[in-house]
Structures are given as C-alpha cells and as structure tokens.
C-alpha cells in the first residue's frame, strides 16, 4: 500500500518538477542583434519590454513588421538544450528512499516570426528522453497570430494550440517546480481510467482574443479565449470552454504593481461521466520601487468540479519572490505553494539560484521540499515528504 503511494507521489512530484516548459527564444536575439536581456530578466522570465514584445506578436512594441520569415536572412529556428542532475529523498512513515539521477539531455526547439503584415506565428517542439532509451518529440504549441488588429497591440487574435495567458505563465517561470494550483487537474473517467483531463498549466486548442492596452493607466492586459479544455488532446465533447483574464498595471516610481483576476468555465463530457468545472483566481505582483531588484508575486485560485451529484473543491495558491542580484549574472528565486483538495493538503517550498556564464548559458541550482497530508483508502492519516535538489545547465542557441 505504502509503496503504491510512494510511486504515485514520486510520479506526481516528478511530473510537476521536471517537466520542461521553459521557453526562451534566442532567435529574436539574433534577429534584432541584441542580448537575451533586452526581453528577459533572466531567461525565460520576461521583463516589461519582453511582455510588450510578446503582446505585439513577437515584434518590437510600436511596430508592425511585414517581411515574412522566408524573405529574411535569419533562420527562424532556435533551440535550448538542458541537462539535469537530480537528488531525491522520499519519506513516508519510517520508510525512506534516496535517488540520484542524471537525466539525459533534452531539447526545446522553437520557431517563430512574421508571416506577413499583421500575421505572425509561434511553435515549440519538445524533445525529451524517452523511458527505455531514445527520445520522444511532441509539438507542444503551434499557433498563428493575427496581430495588431487594433494598433499598439490593443487587439490580437491567435488560433491553434497555445498556453492560456496565466498571471504567471508556467513556461516563463525561473523555478522548475510546477505551480500546484495551475497543475491541478479536472478529469472524467471511464471504467476507472482517466478519459480526459484539463489543467491550467497545459496548452489548449482554440482561439483567443488578447491584447495590451498601454492607454489604460500603466497598461491593461486581457485575454478572452474559447478552448477545447482537454490539454491539446482530442476533444471528447466539442463543448468550448471559456477563459477570461484581466490584469491592470500601475507603476509606482516606474516599478509595476499588477493585480488581476482570472476565470475559467468548462464542461467535459466523457462516455460515462460529465464534469462541469471552473477556476477562479486573483493575483497581485509588485516590484520594490527603489531598486526594482525584488519582485514579489501572489496567486490565489479555487476550483470546483461537479460530476453528477458529487462536488470536489480545490483552493490554494502560491507566494514567491525573484531577486535580481547582479544584472545579467545572478538571480535568486523562491516560492511557497499550498493546495487543499478535500482532506488532502499539499505544501511545497522551492528556493534556487541562477548563474549566467553568458546570456545564453546558465547554471541553476534548485532545492524543493514537499509535504502531502492525505488519508489512505482505510481512512488512516498519512504524511508523505519529499526533498529534491536539482542542478541544471541550460544552453540556448
């Protein structure tokens, strides 16, 4: 029984810790002949300029480019190689287990750019070591953007597979540890097997209207999306889900204070179950207005799943901080995640340090601690603990 829990817990932790979501796109550094730090505080986290660059269809803010990638003298491809060493220690009751792992090098391959006036695109392919040897590749996201329908990136449309514009995008976080509340999955089962699932952290298929309005105070971001809500898997019910997010910025001494809300309303119809689920959350983020080197962020999120008469609720969130210690050299980060689902409580703390050998080559050390209080099938309280230390090298070119 305990071994079963160990396996499930290890799998959960591995999934949320080692999934390589990280995007950073050196192809734009090449295209514009500028360092990664023009758009990133440290890759992949975007700075304020980078956020506006992204909102503008991967073009410099205020510009609408028209030269398609095939007319450009730059190859619109980039890649990031990452290698990871992991030490893990698991504890449940008196049982303890330690593991050392050297993960084989994985890669993320990106392509993005301008297709024509007001048209741009973005696609990412993730290549990860497969179990039992070899590699497996998957197209993670691929979408076309009709940008600047209204000027200054006030209104854009994107079609295809994309990540929802979350307050703290999972692919742009400095920490490798997943956000617990974003990873929380709503699902339907058939004969005890998961038939389909949704989580905010995963890419979705659909259409999105989004934009940045610099005219509203110091900038308002919004997204309204209709998506299939099954994590880019085949839709099982063709019922579009709705995602809405708005976030307002106010600058205090040029340091942004941001606050926003998000709402997701979805329906998943399986062959045996129907799940009507939602997410509601609010977020706030602040930079210290003196040095602008400390960034503190917060998210609170609730979820409700209704399957027949059964209702399951989740609530939780995270609070974290990024510290930009030496520009273009050293950055630190930390986060505390908490989540409660029924009787199950999970807490996670991560802390890490990043050192840049070069703008596109960096070493990251990260320590994570996780504790889960739950009940066994017999109704007995159980506590599981896990610690993990990761050393990662990233090389972008």
């Amino acid at each position, binding site marked *: 029984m305990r071994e079963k829990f160990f396996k499930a817990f290890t799998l959960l932790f591995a999934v949320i810790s080692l999934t390589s979501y990280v995007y950073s796109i050196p192809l734009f550094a090449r295209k514009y002949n500028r360092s990664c730090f023009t758009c990133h505080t440290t890759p992949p986290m975007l700075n*304020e300029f980078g956020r506006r660059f992204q909102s503008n269809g991967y073009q*410099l803010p205020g510009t609408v480019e028209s030269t398609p990638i095939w007319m450009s003298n730059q190859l619109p491809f980039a890649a990031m190689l990452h290698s990871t060493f992991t030490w893990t220690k698991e504890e449940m009751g008196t049982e303890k287990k330690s593991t050392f792992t050297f993960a084989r090098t994985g890669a993320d391959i990106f392509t993005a750019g301008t297709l024509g006036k007001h048209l741009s695109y973005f696609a990412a392919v993730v290549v990860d070591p497969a179990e039992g040897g070899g590699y497996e590749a998957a197209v993670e996201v691929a979408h076309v953007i009709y940008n600047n329908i209204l000027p200054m990136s006030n209104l854009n449309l994107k079609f295809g597979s994309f990540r929802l514009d979350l307050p703290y995008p999972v692919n742009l976080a400095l920490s490798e540890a997943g956000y617990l509340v974003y990873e929380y999955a709503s699902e339907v089962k058939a004969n005890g097997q998961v038939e389909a699932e949704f989580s905010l952290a995963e890419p979705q298929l659909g259409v999105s209207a989004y934009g940045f309005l*610099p005219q509203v105070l110091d900038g308002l971001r919004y997204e309204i999306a209709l998506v299939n809500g099954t994590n880019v898997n085949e839709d099982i019910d063709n019922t579009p889900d709705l995602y809405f997010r708005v976030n307002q910025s106010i600058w205090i001494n040029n340091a942004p204070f941001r606050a926003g809300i998000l709402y997701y309303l979805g329906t998943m119809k399986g062959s045996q179950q129907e799940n009507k689920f939602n997410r509601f959350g609010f977020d706030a983020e602040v930079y210290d207005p003196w040095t602008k080197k400390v960034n503190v962020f917060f998210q609170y999120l609730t979820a409700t799943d209704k399957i027949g008469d059964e209702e399951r609720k989740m609530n939780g969130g995270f609070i974290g901080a990024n510290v930009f210690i030496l520009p273009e050299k050293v950055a630190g980060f930390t986060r505390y995640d908490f989540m409660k689902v029924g009787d199950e409580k999970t807490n996670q703390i991560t802390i890490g340090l990043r050192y840049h050998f070069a703008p596109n080559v960096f070493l990251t050390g990260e320590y994570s601690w996780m504790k889960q209080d739950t009940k066994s099938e017999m109704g007995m309280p159980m506590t599981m603990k896990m610690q993990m230390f990761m050393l990662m090298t990233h090389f972008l070119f």
Partner: protein
Amino acid sequence: MKAKILATIACIGLFIYGFTGIDQPSNPPKEVLEHGKKVFNYVCAPCHGKDGKGDGVVSSTIFVKPRDFTSGIFKFRSTESGNLPTDADLYESISLGFHNTAMPSFSQLTPEDRYALVEYIKTFSERFSNPKEYPLNVVMPTGAIPLSPESIAKGREIYLRMKCWECHGVSGKGDGPAAQRGFKDDWGNKILIPDLTNPNEVKRASTVEDIYLVFTTGLNGSPMPSYKDVLTDEERWHLANYIYALIHGIALYDGKTIEELKSEQ
C-alpha cells in the same frame, strides 16, 4: 486623426527642410508632443522610465543602463564636446540602436513616431529649451582619408603615442591597465571598455565616419574625451581608419597588414 495629420505634415516638413533644433530650441506642435508621449510610454518607458530618468523597471536587470534623458547629456552626437545632440543625432540613435546594449534598432517605427519621440525626449531636459545652448556646433566629417595600409599604420602610431592603450589595451581588447581599475560614467554606472577587435562589442562604429566623430566630439558623460584640440583633423582620420580596421579584422592589432606580416617572414 487630427494629431496624425499634423504629425505627418511636421514629419514631411522635417525631411524637406532638414532637422531643426540646431540654431535654436525647436517648438513642435502640442499634438506632436502628445503623440511622442504616447509612443514613449508604450515603447521606451519600460527601460527609460515614464519620466525619462533611465530608471525603468528593466534598468535593474541590464548591465548597460538606459540613458537618463533629464541631464541632457548624450554620448553619441555629431556636435562638439559638451553640446546637446542634434535632432538628427537623436533620430539616428532611435533608428539604429546601440550594439552590445539592450537598445534595439527601432527603424520599424514609423518616421512620424520617431520624430515625435525625438521631440518628446527633448522635453525631459531643460537644456533643450534653453536658448543659451544654441547654436549647436555641428562637426562635419569632411576630408576623409581613404583606408589604406599606410593610413592604418599611422593610426596605430597615433594610438600608441596618445596612450589610447592605457584604457583600450595594446591589442585593442579593452584590457589596458587603466581599464583594470574600472570606470564609471557621469551617472555612476560602471562602464565596460569595449573589445575593439569584436564588432559586436562596439556600440556605434559601422563606418569610419562614426569613429572619426567619436574622436572629434568625445562621448559626453563618459571618460572618453574629445581629441579635437590635441590631434589634427588628418590624425583623427588615420586613427579612425586604424580602429575601423581593428574592429573589422582588416589589420592586425599592431597595425600591420597580412601582406606586411608575410614579407617579414
């Protein structure tokens, strides 16, 4: 719409009659300034800050700090040391950006946007509206000496004689003894001495004229002085030819060409 028409007219006028602001403070229409403010807050404020002090949120995470416009001190100009830049200088900086910094080329911004930005950026410093700052003494890069092995060798001799190597190093790699001690600019920010053998490290040196202007005007706000009064015009062109050759790998760091090196073997 009205603002756009006015900005377009102002811009066309600008191209027909050349840039203003050399003889006296410019007096742009209010609509141009409003348009400039709108573009600045969207495009430039993340780095330069809404009030142009160079303290935007991005400034804390980049090594080469964004320009503080409130002091009215600009490094890259076509005007004599201590002078304000011309409108054309500011327009060029926006359009070309600067290598080895976070400042990209904004040549994709419309000319109307860039002109409005120039006018709006000038409002951050009182120097631009002070008639005593005018007329600006514009340096015309005339009398260029063609790039030749002889000119490069003379430039090398001047480089050593004027002790440029103390900062820039004997080989031009920015590793001179003075550079080891470190430099700060007038705003208190650390300065990296560029490796003159690496074209990606030099902020603005795509032509010999660009380099000649640096020697002639100096880089205001930095330890790089103007050599207008200590070197003749001809010497500055030789020196510019040598640095150009160094940056673009045409000459070896000691000023010799490959042919000369071969003949010595």
